[in-house]
């Protein structure tokens, strides 16, 4: 057996991380030089990535996603405050190492380009729904002295809606804005809306996976603890096509 054969034979163990610490370090070093093993372990890791789903899921908890997102975004904003200083430091470093700086600049530009392309694709996607919309519904919503509204563009081609909620203040503590589809057989819970008076919330939503036709939509204010299939809170908007 050649050294390479040993690595081929131990790809599964590397992906499972069951190699001994020394072996794992050696394997990692080998991957730097061996494209074949790098591709092989990468493929294996992708294939076996699903294995994590053998474990039973933890049932969704109302408001969890929004809480986690808030923590992540708040952390990111904290970092943003230091960005000017970090940028200044980066500039100083760049001035000190022109060759390295050039490479780093290219990488940053590529990242920036990828972000802009992503933004453009998302905008094009949203615009395609708005442009193709064959029905538009809107209603005003008054909330705590704020005048806002709900606007729905229905695109029959892609079977998606562009939903815009604007002018509403953030939901009070313990409550969430809940968007619902109205179908012939009842209400179907959709997304929670992150409202903010400073900017509208844009959502592109596919039709819910139910057989009954969708007839309209509603926006309610629900207590965070309510995960029932029917709205129980205050109805803020009710639109029927």
């Amino acid at each position: 057996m050649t050294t390479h054969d040993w690595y081929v034979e131990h790809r599964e163990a590397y992906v499972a991380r069951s190699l001994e610490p020394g072996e794992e370090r050696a394997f990692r070093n080998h991957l730097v030089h061996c494209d074949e093993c790098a591709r092989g372990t990468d493929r294996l890791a992708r294939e076996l990535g699903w294995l994590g789903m053998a474990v039973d899921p933890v049932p969704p908890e109302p408001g969890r996603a929004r809480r986690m997102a808030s923590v992540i975004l708040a952390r990111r904003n904290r970092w943003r405050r230091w960005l000017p200083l970090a940028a200044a430091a980066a500039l100083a470093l760049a001035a000190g190492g022109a060759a390295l700086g050039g490479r780093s600049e290219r990488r940053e530009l590529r990242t920036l380009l990828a972000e802009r392309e992503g933004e453009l694709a998302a905008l094009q996607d949203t615009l395609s729904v708005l442009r193709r919309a064959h029905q538009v519904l809107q209603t005003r919503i008054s909330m705590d002295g704020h005048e806002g509204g709900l606007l729905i563009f229905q695109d029959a081609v892609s079977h998606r809606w562009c939903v815009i909620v604007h002018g509403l203040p953030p939901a009070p503590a313990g409550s969430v804005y809940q968007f619902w589809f109205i179908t012939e057989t009842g209400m179907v819970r959709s997304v929670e809306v992150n409202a903010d008076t400073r900017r509208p919330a844009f959502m592109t939503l596919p039709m819910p996976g139910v057989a009954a036709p969708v007839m309209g939509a509603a926006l309610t204010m629900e207590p965070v603890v309510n995960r029932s299939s029917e709205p129980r809170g205050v109805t803020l908007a009710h639109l029927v096509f």
Partner: protein
Amino acid sequence: MPRPVPPRQGGADPPDAAPGGSRRFALAGEASLRRRLVARDEQALVELIEAASPWLLGVTRSMLADHDEADEVVLEVFASAWDRASGLGDENEMLLPWLLRIARNRALDRLRGRRRRRLKLARADAYGELPPAQAGPAEVDEAALPGWHVHESVHGALAGLPEEQRSVVRLAYFRGLTHSEIARELAIPVGTVKTRLRLAFGKLRVALAPIKDWVL
């Protein structure tokens, strides 16, 4: 000790089910979610967390047996995904297995750090088990969980392995033990551990292959 796993509900929604609530992700397709994450759409982050967190929490809580620590790991995973959103352009790799992989690796790092400190081993032993092969999946509102059918397939693939191979996979993949540690735990030679692991992963790759087209 294995967790008690009640029999699966026969398709009826429990009283507090949210029909269709999260199913939209499978319908929406992953490409649009990726694009919106790259575009720093904060709602997309919420949707990603909604869809993936039940599975990530499932695997991290099972591995770490500590809810707070598992929650921390999952938060780190999503923060890392958000920070690296511009690199999510590789559509050959599905988001969910990618996130699961990161979550498992981070949970493993913590487990190993914990082992090094020789702490909490007893609790890991108590909770680190997967449901037994003959049991069905846990009672969850499956209609509201995107990926439930994937869970059933993966659960089934694992349950289809011979017990001696399944136990090696469980110890390696979900408890992060090395070959020699597994050999000690099961009182078998290291060579046997390696063979069983290789055979098991070979079978699992075949069994999991049809899943690759499922997207978040």
